[in-house]
């Protein structure tokens, strides 16, 4: 994978590759997998994404905590939508994937399980609305993968490493870049889409209630999907962000490293540590976690014991 967006884009331009081809070429070099094999595997990955959405939208089954399950269907049950049915579908698909994840269903952790709803909801909804082919979708996935690789290298894609900005923020940046690329955006516009996404999600904390990948994750996946499309729309119209994309990604890394460990997936801060969050954790059978939260939890060494989720 590439170490910077600049390196990726420059090498693509030098060789006359599209951004998608440049990612496939790098992967072939790193893993030995042939381009055709890579495309096949991406198609299989998209298939898992579609099935997860279908599964999430076909059941009202709630998770054991009853915090998620059936919410995606509730969105679609409403007979109207503020921005049209595509908007409603977008949100429902992101939530559906996380609802499937919460009840141990099969999902694609792209880039992580906690952010698994963003890329499928954005790509599959836009594919319907804009009539994209499977080939275009595969190209979009390659571009998304390229973005995720750079963020993983320069910042983090793990909530334990950099909070929710690292998870749903990265997923949204990946999705925004994919949409901008497929819609014919120039490499510069793809870069702007990434920068515009990341700048708006800087600082978002990871504070899963009861330490579970449910709430706020499911809703944050939905809003991150909207965020990705907002950034792509602005980038495609030529709106520019003055700070270069790699520098914006570096800020995400810096903010993540400085973020208090309570806000990095330990469930010792934020929404997780609210009085109601503690009661939910208690009901979910996590007495040790609740004890740490009550102790004011909040010491770094306690959090270090809890580590990544």
């Amino acid at each position, binding site marked *: 994978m590439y170490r910077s967006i600049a390196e990726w884009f420059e090498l693509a331009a030098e060789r006359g590759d599209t951004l998608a081809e440049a990612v496939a070429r790098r992967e072939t070099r790193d893993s030995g997998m042939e381009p055709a094999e890579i495309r096949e*595997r991406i198609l299989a990955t998209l298939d898992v994404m579609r099935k997860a959405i279908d599964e999430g939208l076909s059941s009202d089954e709630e998770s054991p905590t009853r915090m998620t399950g059936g919410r995606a269907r509730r969105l679609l049950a409403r007979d109207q939508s503020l921005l049209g049915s595509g908007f409603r579908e977008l949100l429902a698909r992101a939530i559906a994937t996380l609802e499937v994840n919460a009840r141990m269903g099969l*999902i694609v952790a792209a880039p*992580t399980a906690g952010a698994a709803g963003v890329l499928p909801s954005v790509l599959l909804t836009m594919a319907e609305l804009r009539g994209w082919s499977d080939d275009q979708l595969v190209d979009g996935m390659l571009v998304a993968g390229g973005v995720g690789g750079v963020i*993983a290298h320069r910042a983090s894609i793990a909530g334990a490493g950099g909070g929710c900005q690292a998870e749903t923020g990265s997923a949204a940046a990946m999705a925004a870049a994919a949409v901008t690329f497929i819609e014919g955006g120039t490499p510069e516009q793809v870069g702007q889409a990434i920068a515009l996404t990341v700048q708006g999600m800087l600082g978002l904390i990871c504070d899963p209630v009861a330490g*579970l990948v449910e709430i706020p994750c499911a809703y944050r996946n939905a809003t991150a999907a909207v965020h990705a499309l907002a950034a792509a729309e602005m980038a495609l119209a030529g709106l520019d962000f003055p700070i270069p994309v790699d520098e914006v990604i570096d800020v995400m890394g810096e903010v993540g490293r400085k973020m208090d460990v309570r806000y990095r997936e330990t469930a010792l801060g934020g929404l997780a540590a609210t009085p109601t969050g503690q009661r939910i954790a208690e009901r979910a059978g*996590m007495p040790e976690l609740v004890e740490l939260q009550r102790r004011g939890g909040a010491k770094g060494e306690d959090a270090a014991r809890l*580590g990544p989720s």
Partner: protein
Amino acid sequence: MTNLFDILGPTMVGPSSSHTAGACRLGFVTQALAGGPPERAEIELHGSFAMTGEGHGTKRAIVGGLLGMRPDDAGLRDSLARARQAGVEFSFRTTDLGEGAHPNTARIRVWRGGRETCLRGASIGGGRIRVEEVDGMGVSLTGTLPTLVLVADDVPGTIAEISGLLARREVNVAAMRVDRTGRGERALMTVEIDGPIPDEVVRDIEAKPWAHWIRAIARLA
């Protein structure tokens, strides 16, 4: 090194890449080392594995892995029932492996065919794992490449013989690590190789008088 399908994946049963997918892989590697699903397993969970594992299906994931399931196996959901049906005895307890231990660490002790195998490993994020100890000996095994694990007498020439046997089958070694219990005693070797492990290599090494046991562990992702 991150590859494309670490970013666009893994495809996995939820809800958590480290508490579920990584936990499953720790169980999977344990059964691969034991030569198959065990008859009995004692599993100790440390840190976050113990504290929030319940809601993440960590126990089901480890037991599923012990039965040979991969992170994308829908059977992980009811692996505990499947293990009971298959007559696999298992128990869990919480442990404290100390400050230095990774928050998502498990120690898994299994029995199969009269032999005991004990693995200690951590789930280090995104579904990736690091096996830190096998039978009390330090190792470094990630499963990102096909890996040979063997116990041999600590006598001169074994490493040269092993690399010779691998070279004869045109197998390229990516990394090799040797740990021993003491001078002249037994050595545990982990050999990561590029590409799949030919059966002949395992048989070649097994036939050597200094080799006690050998296991081939396929690439995990």
